[in-house]
C-alpha cells in the first residue's frame, strides 16, 4: 500500500506519483532477476535520468529539479522500497554531483552540471581507500601538480558503480592536504578491480580503482587545493540523509511484505497477525519505520531551511539504518522458515540492510559525530 506522505506542494505530489509509477514498472519488475544473477540493469539509469530523477535536489538552471531535500529523499525512499541497490546508486550519484554543484566555479558548473543532472549520466564517489575508510584523512592516493594538470597515482576502494560510472568525485592528496577532483569515468591510467562479491546490492558493482599516473586537467580541481576534506564531509552530511531515506524505504518494503503475509497465513485457527506475539512484533516494526522517516525528514527540513543539520543527519543515518536492520530481520521471523528462503524477498532485504549500517560513515562514526556535538 502506498505510504501516506505529507508533501509540501502539488508539484511534489506529482513527482511522487511519477516515481511510484516508474518504480513499479521499471524497478519492481526487474529487481529479482538482476539481484539473483548479479547483472547490471542496462539502460535503467538512462530511464531515471530522462524522467528527471537524477538531478532532483539541484538548481533548475543547470538541469536539476530544484526540489527540497524533504521531497528528494522521499523519492529515494520510494525507489529503495522497490530496489535498494538502484536507490543507493541514485543517492551516490547525488553525492557525486555535490562537489561541483556546491564548490565548482560558474564555468565548471556550466560545463558539467547539465550533463550530470539531466543527461542520463551516472556518477560515483571515490573517497575511501583499502586502509582509509572511517579514517578518511589517512588516504594516500596522490595528485601531483604539473604543467598540464594533476597526475594521479594510488588505489581507491569501495566505489559504488565502479567501472560503470561516467564520472567520479575523486579525493586525492595534493601535498600535505587533500583535494577534490571531478574525474572522468575513463581516462588513460585508470583501471578498475573485479567487482567485490558482496552480501547484497548485487546488481550494481562495487570496485576498487587503480590510478597509475592518469592525468586530470587543471580545471577538474573542485574548490581550492587542500579543501578536499571539507568538501568530502559536507557532501557526506547530505549523502547520509540519502542513505537514511534508502534504509527507510527498504524497511518499509520489509514491513509491507510481513504485514501481507501475517494477514494471509493462519496458525492455530487464526491469522498470525491476530496472535499478539506476532502482532506486537509487527507493531514495533511499523513504529521503527515511522520513526526512521520522521527522523530523516526532520534533518531534511533543517537542511532546506539553511539551518545546521550535520548532527541530525547523523542521527537519521543511525536511526534509519538500525531500524532497517531490525525490521528486515524481524520480517524474516514473521515469515518463519519461508523467510529464510529465496522464495520470498525478505531474505534479500535482510542482506541488503546490513551494508546500510556500514557505508557512508559506519554507525559508530555517526555516534562519534553526534557525541562530538555534545562535548563541551
Amino acid at each position, binding site marked *: 500500500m502506498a505510504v501516506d506522505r505529507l508533501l509540501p506542494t502539488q*508539484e511534489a505530489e506529482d*513527482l511522487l506519483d*511519477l516515481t511510484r509509477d516508474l518504480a513499479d514498472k521499471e524497478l519492481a519488475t526487474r529487481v529479482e532477476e538482476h539481484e539473483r544473477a548479479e547483472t547490471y540493469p542496462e539502460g535503467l539509469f538512462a530511464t531515471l535520468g530522462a*524522467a*528527471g530523477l537524477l538531478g*532532483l535536489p539541484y538548481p533548475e538552471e543547470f538541469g536539476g529539479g530544484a526540489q527540497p531535500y524533504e521531497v528528494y529523499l522521499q523519492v529515494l525512499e520510494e525507489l529503495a522500497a522497490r530496489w535498494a541497490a538502484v536507490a543507493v546508486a541514485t543517492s551516490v550519484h547525488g553525492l557525486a554531483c555535490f562537489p561541483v554543484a556546491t564548490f565548482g566555479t560558474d564555468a565548471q558548473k556550466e560545463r558539467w552540471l547539465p550533463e550530470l543532472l539531466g543527461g542520463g549520466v551516472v556518477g560515483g564517489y571515490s573517497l575511501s581507500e583499502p586502509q582509509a575508510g572511517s579514517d578518511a584523512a589517512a588516504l594516500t592516493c596522490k595528485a601531483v601538480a604539473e604543467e598540464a594538470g594533476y597526475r594521479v597515482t594510488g588505489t581507491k576502494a569501495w566505489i559504488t558503480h565502479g567501472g560503470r560510472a561516467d564520472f567520479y568525485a575523486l579525493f586525492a592528496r595534493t601535498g600535505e592536504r587533500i583535494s577534490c577532483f571531478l574525474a572522468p569515468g575513463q581516462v588513460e591510467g585508470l583501471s578498475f578491480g573485479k567487482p567485490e562479491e558482496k552480501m547484497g546490492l548485487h546488481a550494481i558493482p562495487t570496485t576498487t580503482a587503480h590510478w597509475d599516473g592518469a592525468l586530470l586537467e587543471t580545471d577538474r580541481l573542485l574548490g581550492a587545493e587542500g579543501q578536499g576534506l571539507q568538501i568530502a564531509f559536507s557532501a557526506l552530511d547530505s549523502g547520509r540523509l540519502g542513505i537514511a531515506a534508502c534504509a527507510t524505504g527498504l524497511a518499509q518494503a520489509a514491513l509491507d511484505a510481513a504485514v501481507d503475509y501475517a494477514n494471509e497465513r493462519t496458525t492455530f485457527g487464526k491469522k498470525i497477525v491476530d496472535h499478539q506475539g506476532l502482532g506486537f512484533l509487527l507493531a514495533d516494526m511499523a513504529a521503527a519505520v515511522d520513526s526512521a522517516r520522521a527522523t530523516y525528514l526532520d534533518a531534511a527540513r533543517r537542511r532546506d531551511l539553511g539551518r545546521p543539520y550535520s548532527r541530525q543527519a547523523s542521527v537519521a543515518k543511525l536511526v534509519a539504518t538500525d531500524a532497517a536492520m531490525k525490521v528486515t530481520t524481524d520480517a524474516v521471523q514473521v515469515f518463519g522458515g519461508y523467510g529464510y528462503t529465496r522464495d520470498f524477498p525478505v531474505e534479500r532485504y535482510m542482506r541488503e540492510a546490513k551494508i546500510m549500517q556500514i557505508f557512508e560513515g559506519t554507525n559508530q562514526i555517526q555516534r562519534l559525530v553526534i557525541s562530538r556535538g555534545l562535548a563541551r
Partner: protein
Amino acid sequence: MNIVVLVKQVPDTYSERKLSSGDHTLDRDATDAVLDEIDERAVESALQLKEANDGSEVTVVAMGPDRATDAIRKALSMGADKAVHLSDEAIHGTDAIGTAKALVKVLGTLEGTDLVLAGNEASDGRTGAVPAMVAELLGLPSLTHARELTVDGGTVTVRRETDDGVTVLTAELPAVVSVNEKINEPRYPSFKGIMAAKKKPVTTLTLADAGIEPSDVGLSAAWSTVTESNPKPPKSGGEKVEDEGDGGSKIAAFLVGQKLI
C-alpha cells in the same frame, strides 16, 4: 504536421469496475481514473512523428467529465502541446455513435489537421468502433489496428494487425489511424514535462461551444439501452472429469461447449 490524438480517461484496469445502480452506466466515481493505456501509445506515436517532423504540433482531444483533465495532463506531460476538452453534463451516457459525432464537431474547431490518432479500443466500453466512425463522418481514410505507423510526405502507411492477419494499408493525409498495443512502449512523463504541462493551453468546450446538438448525445440518444445488470457470479468449484481413458475427448468436448475451441 498537425496531429490530433483522441484520448479517453478510463477506470484503472486493475481496479474492480462497476455499473451504477441508477442508469447502468459506468460508475466512474467508484474507481481510480487513468489515461487509457492504449491512448498513451497513441500519444507516443504522435510524439515520435512530431520529433521526426520539425514544426509539428500534437493536440490532445478528450471527451468526458471534469476529472478527465487528469488524463489530459498526463498526455501533455508526456509532451503533447495543447488540448481540447469537451466537458458537459449532457454527454453522460453517450454511446459510440454519439461519441463519434461529438468528436467530429470538436475536431471541426481545429484547423489544418493532417492526422487523427487514437487507440483502437478503450479498456472500459470496448466497442472499438469510434476511430472508424470518426473517419466515416469526416470522410477520411480509416486505418485501424495499426501495429506500425510511418508517415512519408503526404502518405501514411500502417501495418494493420487483426485476428484475420496482417495487412499493409496506405492512404493520403489527412487520415484517421487507430493503434494497437504493439505499436510502441510509451515514454514516462519527465518531472520537467509534468511542470511544463501545467502551463500548456487546455481549451474546455461545452456542447454549445462545439456546436453539438444535445439530441445527438447523452443516454437518451444512445442506440442501445442497458435494462438490467448483475455482478459477475463468484467462481464456482468447476467441473470434475473422471478419466476413464477418454479424458482428452471429454476436455475437448468441454472446451467446445464453452466455445473456446
